[in-house]
């Protein structure tokens, strides 16, 4: 069979067009319907009904075998409480109500849409799940701590030593970590897998923490103002704070 150069080019052009538009026509490149995107909403007013409360931190650290290391240079934490000025340094201004300035609230991994930690991880040990959770695969972590340097929220901790001696009790259903790996909050992916809420949300005595899909969280917002930590960095954090 002989064919002219003209007819070959015409056929190639038709195939190129089909290749460009077929996925759109077939709907295969559309985002999956009903894809979940998890987020956490912190209602600071409710949280501060119990000043000094540490229930979220205690519940989380017990559930995940997070060691209590007294040396602040070596401590490991997944969620902890900070004052308003430490959570939102740029939000403090002379007209900010004093009640708000006196707030404290929990800080944790923000599970960003575009997490810098994931971008710098050389082994793929930290990654974004389809539901938006920034997860850690400790099996792959080589302890380089690039992610800790990249995270603008200081949400990651390094195991400078074997954490087991610093555990008062061990939760048998959750592994500990080992020396030389980085760890952080993972939105309790092990609990979500069995249909439970995150440990901090369950433990909160004032129901200040609401966990769920972003779209559904909108229903739980009663305040005028919802802010995120350092949105100017473009990481799109998914821990929201309602003032």
């Amino acid at each position, binding site marked *: 069979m002989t064919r002219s150069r003209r007819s070959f080019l015409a056929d190639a052009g038709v195939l190129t067009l089909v290749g460009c538009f077929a996925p759109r026509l077939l709907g295969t490149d559309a985002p999956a319907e009903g894809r979940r995107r998890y987020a956490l909403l912190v209602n600071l007013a409710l949280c501060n009904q119990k000043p000094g409360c540490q229930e979220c931190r205690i519940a989380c650290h017990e559930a995940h075998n997070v060691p209590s290391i007294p040396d602040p240079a070596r401590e490991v934490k997944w969620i902890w409480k900070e004052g308003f000025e430490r959570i939102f340094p740029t939000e403090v201004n002379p007209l900010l109500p004093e009640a708000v300035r006196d707030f404290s609230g929990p800080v944790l991994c923000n599970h960003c849409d575009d997490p810098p930690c994931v971008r710098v991880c050389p082994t793929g040990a930290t990654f974004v799940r389809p539901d938006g959770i920034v997860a850690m695969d*400790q*099996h792959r972590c080589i302890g380089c701590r690039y992610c800790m340097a990249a995270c603008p929220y200081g949400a990651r901790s390094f195991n400078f030593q074997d954490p087991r001696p610093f555990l008062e009790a061990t939760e048998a259903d959750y592994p500990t970590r080992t020396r030389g790996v980085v760890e952080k909050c993972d939105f309790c992916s*092990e609990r979500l897998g069995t249909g439970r809420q995150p440990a901090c949300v369950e433990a909160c005595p004032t129901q200040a923490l609401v966990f769920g899909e972003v779209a559904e969280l909108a229903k739980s917002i009663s305040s005028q103002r919802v802010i995120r930590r350092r949105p100017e960095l473009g990481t799109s954090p998914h821990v929201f704070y309602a003032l």
Partner: protein
Amino acid sequence: MDARRTRGRAILGVAAGVVLVPPILSAAAFSLSSRTTEPFLQSPPPEKGSCVEDSAWMRTHHMDYLKQLRDEVVRDGVRGTVSLRTCSECHVEQARFCDKCHEAVDLRPDCWDCHDYSSAEAGAAANPTRGAP
């Protein structure tokens, strides 16, 4: 002439024996020694039922199987019913299950740096009907 050749052959034979016999003997001794008795464990009591896969297959492929489970859980978020815990429900003692073979082949996997087999052992101590593996 003939005598010299015969003597030469005898010397050669003795030399070959000196070189070859000790390794052969030591290999034979090694294969008869206790180190090469099968390190595998007896099966768990029959009321436990069968393993998640065929035992012979598990002996060869459990490391790949565990890695596959690991990736499904950690990376894909698919939590199945089988975990390291499932192993410890039947093979109660880590020392007589994991460690026994790993020591025999001088292998030191780091599973237990983070994961915990011993709590299952504690449970077995409290409930002796679970039996030894």
